[in-house]
């Protein structure tokens, strides 16, 4: 199934929860399946990611209508529970692994609009035009948002590093 991995990764960063991501992806692939004939052009991946994004937005609206509005801190804690299960032995993790976990925390803490452009650009390697298609934003907005997102990532990373000095041996 082409692009299922990309769809899942993107959904995971949007929802910050493994379980929610699975639900979103499942819904998105069904929608994509039913609408496949309407696909114009060749960018299947971008088209699918746009559907994932719409499904996520719909799910979010439904949650809000039901009055279920998770606090950001709670969401992060949920995400942490699945993505960053506390290692039984922190010393057992390599520095690379520690960095990866810290990046996950930092990314999860960014605003949703910053996180999505960063993930699409750096992890999925989409061009500005493709990101604009997925997020339904003008290219100029993609550029400036990406710049702000990178600055936010940097600030948050530095804060995280300095605030929590780590013993590196």
């Amino acid at each position: 199934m082409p692009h299922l991995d990309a769809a899942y990764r993107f959904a995971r960063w949007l929802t910050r929860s493994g379980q929610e991501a699975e639900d979103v992806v499942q819904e998105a692939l069904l929608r994509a399946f039913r609408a496949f004939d309407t696909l114009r052009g060749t960018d299947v991946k971008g088209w699918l990611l746009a559907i994932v994004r719409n499904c996520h937005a719909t799910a979010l609206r439904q949650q809000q209508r039901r009055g279920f509005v998770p606090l950001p801190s709670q969401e992060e804690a949920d995400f942490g529970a699945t993505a960053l299960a506390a290692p039984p032995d922190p010393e057992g993790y390599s520095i690379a692994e520690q960095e990866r976990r810290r990046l996950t925390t930092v990314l999860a803490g960014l605003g949703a609009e910053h996180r999505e452009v960063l993930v699409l650009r750096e992890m999925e390697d989409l061009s500005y035009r493709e990101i604009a298609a997925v997020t339904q934003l003008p290219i100029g907005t993609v550029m400036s948002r990406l710049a702000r997102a990178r600055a936010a990532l940097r600030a948050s990373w530095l804060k995280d590093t300095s605030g929590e000095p780590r013993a590196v041996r």
Partner: protein
Amino acid sequence: MQCAESLRVQARFDGELDALAAAEIERHLERCPECRALVEDLERARTLMRAAPLEAAPPALRARVSRLLDEEGAAERGRPRALERGNRTWRWPSFWSGAVAGVGAAACAAAVAWWFVFSAASPDGLLDDLIAAHVRSLMPAHLTDVVSTDRHTVKPWFAGHADVSPVVADFADQGYRLVGGRADYFEGHRAAAVVYEHGPHIINVFSWAGAQRGLPGRTTRNGYHMVFWRIGNVEYCAVSDTGWDELEGLVSRLRDLGARDARD
């Protein structure tokens, strides 16, 4: 206060600028420490975000979605779904028509490449190839493979990427700035392209191991000026939208240098 060029520096980093803008930004970086620091930050963030292997979808999700789509497909076709599991992980019928279209496109590309190789047997075909390569180089992120203003970086780079070792020099003090080098492929040869910048113009200097043919000394095609010359068995062609005098200015410098190299 952020430098006014920071967005274009980012776009350059992301490979989104056309050749002219990219060259402008390279020049800007030389004199803006703030933007150089920005590039370092961008690189660090990218390294960090690309260090981890990409996560895959959980197998259970894959299986579930695959089953759902099967059911959906079966319902759509209004007949019971096939029983065997092995070869039906992806059931979008249109996906296969897409795959067929892909193969068709590849065949077309091969046919075009074939046509290029053979049509290039006449000088006309070669001229078209050179113009196409020049125009292609002006598209975003295609200007250079190796970016450097130092000929000692650019020249050795060609050793692994082209069939010839062209004359490379930076005449920045005379208005022809070396931007970098690029490998191109036409006429069955790996050609070297050295990129210079003259004012707002880009000049591509192509070189390849030559076969004897009736090449013009100079000509104009699609509005681009082309100058041909030969040093030893290496054929050179400079292409640009500059005026003749500017183009000949670079060519005469390169010819002098090449002749001197050949004597030494």
